[in-house]
């Protein structure tokens, strides 16, 4: 099984520890991971702004870097959503389609493909609130969503429940968007910040010490909001908890 690691641009630049945790975790699980060095980004920031033609170069490069792997794993629900559902600025050749189908967000890969049943090295004795990004919740279907009234399920909670000492707490509006939304965070700054303030306050009121997510972009926004607001919360990517990183 050839597995490639895709490290999204903002994780590469701002959160290398998340990529390191992802790499180490996959290796602990016995996977040989390759990291194509010429990778940049999936093109989402450009395509989400409506500039489809400007995303073509990034998409072509992505396919060049990741063609031929059995699985392409990334610690980002948002990027996975983009690659799976919107990555169509270039002609959809068999190679492109294959790369899109073989790209997995980390939680999906652990839960659905590897079916991991234990993380014996992981311990996290803290109260933790889970933030499902909107892409993972309503597009990748990590968890049941409150809109549909379907039977409860949650892939990230199923994984986190295998971590020793962890105590999950639930905010009053678990499915509410935190207001990051990519370029929304700067072009619609007033609403974005207000949503972020409301989100971190909701988690704090539920008793959380940490917020965990499969999407660090949401966490980056929420962390910025919490720090400015003076709300004492810490933020951690799910890869770090599952990898047993010391808090």
């Amino acid at each position: 099984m050839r597995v490639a690691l895709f490290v999204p641009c903002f994780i590469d630049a701002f959160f290398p520890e998340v990529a390191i945790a992802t790499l180490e975790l996959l290796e602990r699980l016995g996977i040989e991971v390759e990291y194509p060095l010429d990778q940049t980004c999936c093109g989402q920031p450009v395509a989400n702004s409506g500039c489809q033609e400007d995303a073509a170069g990034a998409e072509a490069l992505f396919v060049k870097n990741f063609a031929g792997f059995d699985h392409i794993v990334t610690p980002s629900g948002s990027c996975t959503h983009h690659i799976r559902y919107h990555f169509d600025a270039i002609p959809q050749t068999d190679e492109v389609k294959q790369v899109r189908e073989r790209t997995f967000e980390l939680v999906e890969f652990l839960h659905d493909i590897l079916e991991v049943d234990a993380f014996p090295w992981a311990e996290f004795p803290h109260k933790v609130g889970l933030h499902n990004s909107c892409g993972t919740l309503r597009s990748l279907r990590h968890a049941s969503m409150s809109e549909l009234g379907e039977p409860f399920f949650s892939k990230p909670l199923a994984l986190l429940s295998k971590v020793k000492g962890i105590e999950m707490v639930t905010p009053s509006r678990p499915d509410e968007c935190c207001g990051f939304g990519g370029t929304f965070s700067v072009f619609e700054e007033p609403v974005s910040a207000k949503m972020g303030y409301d989100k971190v306050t909701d988690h704090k009121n539920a008793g959380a010490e940490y917020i965990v997510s499969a999407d660090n972009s949401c966490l980056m926004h929420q962390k910025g909001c919490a720090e400015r607001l003076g709300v004492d919360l810490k933020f951690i990517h799910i890869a770090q908890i599952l990898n047993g990183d010391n808090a």
Partner: protein
Amino acid sequence: MKRIDHAEASSFFIAEKENEAFHDKRLWDLRQKRDHQRDDVPEWNELRELASAIKEHTLSHLSDYLEQFEDNAKKNGAHVHWALDAEEHNRIVHEILADHGVNTLVKSKSMLTEECELRPYLARRGIDVIETDLGERIQQLDDEPPSHIVVPAVHKLRGNVADVFARTLGSDPDNDDPHYLSEQARVTTRPYFLAAEAGMTGGNFAVAETGAVVVCTNEGNADLSATVPPLQLASVGIEKIIPRTEHLAVFVRMLSRSAVGSPITQYTSHYRKPKDGGELHIVLVDNGRSERLGMEDFWTSLKCIRCGACMNTCPVYRRSGGLSYGGVYSGPIGIILNPTYDLRKYSNLPFASTLNGSCTNVCPVKINIHEQIYQWRRILSEHNQLPFVKKAAMKVTGKVLADPKAYRRTIAATDVAMEHLPRFLLYTRFNAWGKQREVPVTPDQTFHAWYLKNRGTS
């Protein structure tokens, strides 16, 4: 036409802290009530499928059903008029009213008449139009459009309403008791029902097989407007057609549950025939709907039954208020409807969304709202309707992302900028991120650098 600046308008809305907090809480409460009602209907998602299928079938046979509706309505004794656009609609309505010597028209809330700007049109021609539904009346007295398609004055606190009524109705400015305020509206509106020579409603559904217009309301003013004056008018968008009465068994079960979380509206009235000695005029209005029906990516937006569930669930709408969208329709449905009326004016709206998808999943007729928002962004870009700065930035970003070497240089430059720029430079009003948020601390090295150092070149 000037572009609507949703971001700026939202900052004014958020600045009114008490209003914003109430607005968010009140609409979230409606969303939760909707969830509870949904749970009482085990076949909810099956109903959504059915509702969507009935609407898609009807829209793809629209001309046939419209003609069937016209035939049956005429057989019932109603007059049926066809209006291509808002101007023709207003002209037809005015002609009917003028022919009957109408000075005062009582009406119940109708988004279509808002869309056509009927009230100012008739006012200019000397006809008084009185809105009779409480929320819409408040908005009329305050000279503001509705901010929500179901609860038009939801952005106002009771104190705001007391101010409006004191100013316009002469009520006690210090009394903001809801019972007192609704009584003020009632006693000042009721006389108009008796004085008016004509009454007007919109229509939630128009049933092709019977020629009936169905109106769903809670306050009963639509019924008073329709039944008290001798002359009755109903303006109905052509997309409101459904083939058969039995289809109401699907839609009526979903409408009020989705809208306000009640099992059914207080009144569900079927208007078929003119009253004895009176007249019933039904105006079927296109106003851009046929054109939208021809738009491959957006035609399913015509399935909308105007329940407002997408607005109630939308975290952006709840924190920016309906008026910030600058159009007749607001919230997620407004984002996808308004650009069909004026692409340039509403070109910022598709960016007033985090694309979170909650709207799509509460929609009772399964409109893929957030996907249409995404699609509008592409259309706007193709029609050169993005601000120059954004367009230019995306062009440069696209080039950098396509070139590994340029990308590495840019990431390195970002590091340097973050480390060396003094804090006051990062947190100016030009830096939207830093205005209300801290920027992330830049790590010592990128993952890429860490990998090269620790894992060599594989």
